[in-house]
């Protein structure tokens, strides 16, 4: 509980700090402070759980994150982002936080679920988007664009959806809901649930 509590405090600080930085001067007005504030919560929610992890921390995280979510939404609105853009970006990220916290908790109940979730976390949730970002950022000049299979693997990651919606489109085209990422969370939870039924 103590280690988990410290982790939660760190997540709160990482989430709150960017909201108080003068992003207006650093970046354009299209940056979504709400999405930026939700990244630490999203990373924390997707992390694989152990069997012993307390569920009280997850319940407490909701109360800690709520004011920062509201502040992020208000700052999005203050930047002249439309209600639909702000709600879809912040709401989509918040939905992913809930979905992955639930999926990680559910997978933590069984040994097979924990193994599946940990593998999926390394391969799909964090690994594929990180590898794709490395290809596009550093390796792009040497190897060209990221291969198609890597793009396909990275697409259902909640971090890919977050990265794609960090900047609200200025053209007025609204962002889409994270269906692929929600689907992945559901599939992982279902895989863990089947194991439980078999064992029962």
């Amino acid at each position, binding site marked *: 509980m103590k280690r988990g509590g410290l982790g939660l405090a760190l997540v709160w600080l990482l989430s709150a700090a960017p909201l108080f930085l003068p992003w*207006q001067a650093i970046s354009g*007005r299209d940056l979504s402070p709400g999405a930026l504030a939700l990244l630490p919560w999203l990373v924390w929610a997707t992390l694989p759980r152990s069997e012993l992890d307390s569920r009280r921390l997850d319940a407490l995280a909701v*109360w*800690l994150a709520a*004011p920062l979510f*509201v502040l992020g939404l208000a700052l999005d609105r*203050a930047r002249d982002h439309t209600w639909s853009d702000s709600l879809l970006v912040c709401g989509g990220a918040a939905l992913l936080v809930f979905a992955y916290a639930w999926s990680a908790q559910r997978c933590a109940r069984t040994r097979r679920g924990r193994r599946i979730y940990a593998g999926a976390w390394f391969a799909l949730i964090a690994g594929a988007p990180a590898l794709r970002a490395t290809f596009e950022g550093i390796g792009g000049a040497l190897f060209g664009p990221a291969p198609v299979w890597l793009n396909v693997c990275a697409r259902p990651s909640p971090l890919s959806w977050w990265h794609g919606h960090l900047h609200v489109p200025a053209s007025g085209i609204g962002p889409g809901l994270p269906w692929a990422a929600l689907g992945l969370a559901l599939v992982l939870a279902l895989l863990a649930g089947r194991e439980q039924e078999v064992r029962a």
Partner: protein
Amino acid sequence: MSCALALLLVLQSRLAWARYELHGPMSEPALELVAGSSTRLTGALLAGEHVERLLPVVVDPLGSRGEPRWTWSEDPDRAGRARFLGWDHEAEMQWSALPPGLRARPRPPVLPADTTPPLALFFLLGGAALASVGLARRGRLAPLVPSLAGCVLAWWFAGAANPGAPLTWTVLEGQGGDGPWIEVRAAWETLALPAEATALVLASEPEAAPISVVTKLAHADGLDLRAPGAALTSSRVCDPAPGRIDASGQDCADFEAVWWRAEGEWTYRGAWSRGQALPAARLGDPPPGWLMNGLPQGPRVCLARTAGPNPRWFRDLGP
């Protein structure tokens, strides 16, 4: 020298005017001359309908000026057409006829609204978080109260920092008693110009920022300008002039604050109502730097500001 300066100022305008004849069917036509910048006309023309319009075109002030490209929708048979009738130079001529000193005055300091919340909110939210942690042992819903308080504080502070509608600077520039006045409107990213305040000259900072213009197709109307990440400044001749200003009285507006320069000395005069004589000098703030910079030495200067959340600024040079 003055002709060269005038020509330079004319060439710096990001907006030119082109005369077009548009024949339907077409819907939401848009024209583009400079990549990234466009003029979109809201509305539609049916088959057989046509309209002749003088349209604003965003140009590269230092680039060559060709014929804009058109796109539109709802024309399956490709029967709609846009006929270019030529560029209209009336605005440029009207602008270049003004005294060069009047056109070359410093622009208002347009900056994006600062949306960064105050640091005090960080500590207030931190306090709410600690209270939530402290109350968590009393039950699952016990942290609800400090969390909700944090939400209200966050919304209120960010709402208070939000200036609401984007600030539009309005500066009225006068020169020489009965001489012409110009009105300068400036704003960050978005600038709405009503039909009676159409720009003679449009400037952007950065100079090459893409600008999109939206206006109506059916008839001449106001312009909605948008330039992401840029300041927009529009200037036009103020007709009729707002009034006359001299020490015996003024009939421009009720000023909230006035700064007066006579014989090289600046004095603060406080509020100055319409029709009253110039108030006596008193202690007060110095004039804003952007308003007093770049003025010629010698003539009498009156700088003034009206009241309200979106005040009008006056900068008048006497003879």
